[in-house]
């Protein structure tokens, strides 16, 4: 699965994009955030408040409890500030 990070999530993780093999236990966007959080200090800081973070699966907004196991691309980002 391709995983993308934007804005301060990109800066904190130090990663714009990576390939991840989902562990068996990870089903939802929230599961994935909690799993990523354990990786290292940067990821821990990026996901320190997972409730704040928005998730897209295959370029569509999804809720944190939505199943993402079938997605080819998952993205994490802060609330949007365009316009």
């Amino acid at each position, binding site marked *: 699965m391709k995983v993308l990070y934007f804005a301060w999530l990109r800066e904190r993780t130090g990663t714009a994009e990576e390939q991840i093999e989902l562990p068996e236990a990870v089903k939802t966007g929230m599961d994935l955030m909690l799993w990523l959080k354990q990786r290292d200090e940067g990821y821990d800081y990026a996901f320190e408040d997972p409730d704040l973070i928005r998730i897209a699966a295959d370029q569509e907004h999804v809720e944190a409890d939505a199943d993402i196991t079938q997605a080819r691309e998952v993205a994490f980002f802060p609330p949007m*500030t365009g316009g």
Partner: protein
Amino acid sequence: MQPVPLKILVTANDFDVAAETRRLTEARKDVGAVVTFSGLCRDEAGTLSALELEHYPGMAEAELKRIADEALERWPLTGLTVIHRFGMIRPGENIVLVLAASAHRRAAFEACDFLMDFLKTRAPFWKKEHLTESNEARWVEAKTSDDDDATRWKKSKI
């Protein structure tokens, strides 16, 4: 007469309001109203060097199209254009442009207003402020007032 094809553009370049207006009105006699929203980079305090606009390529266009399709379904529009810039934008420069054309003004006003409310809360763009006085840069925080604006359109399915 068929509506002018929907135009969604995410670009680093500035836009030309007059040319975009012509695209929606030229050679047509069914357009009674064009409502245009231009969003610009502000800097009242004089401390901003530039706004850096980051976006999610692919999803930005897709999400703008979803919002625009919802507007086209809700209002009888003869044309709709949404342009959003990314990259470095200086104070006084354009950021976003929405044009809605219709036979009657109420539809054009409401569609344009709706587009901006949902664009603000759903289109994947993020602003970073670069300051003049330092090398510091900070991410702009989302405003809850924008969420409130979006909830005004209760019927919305998106």
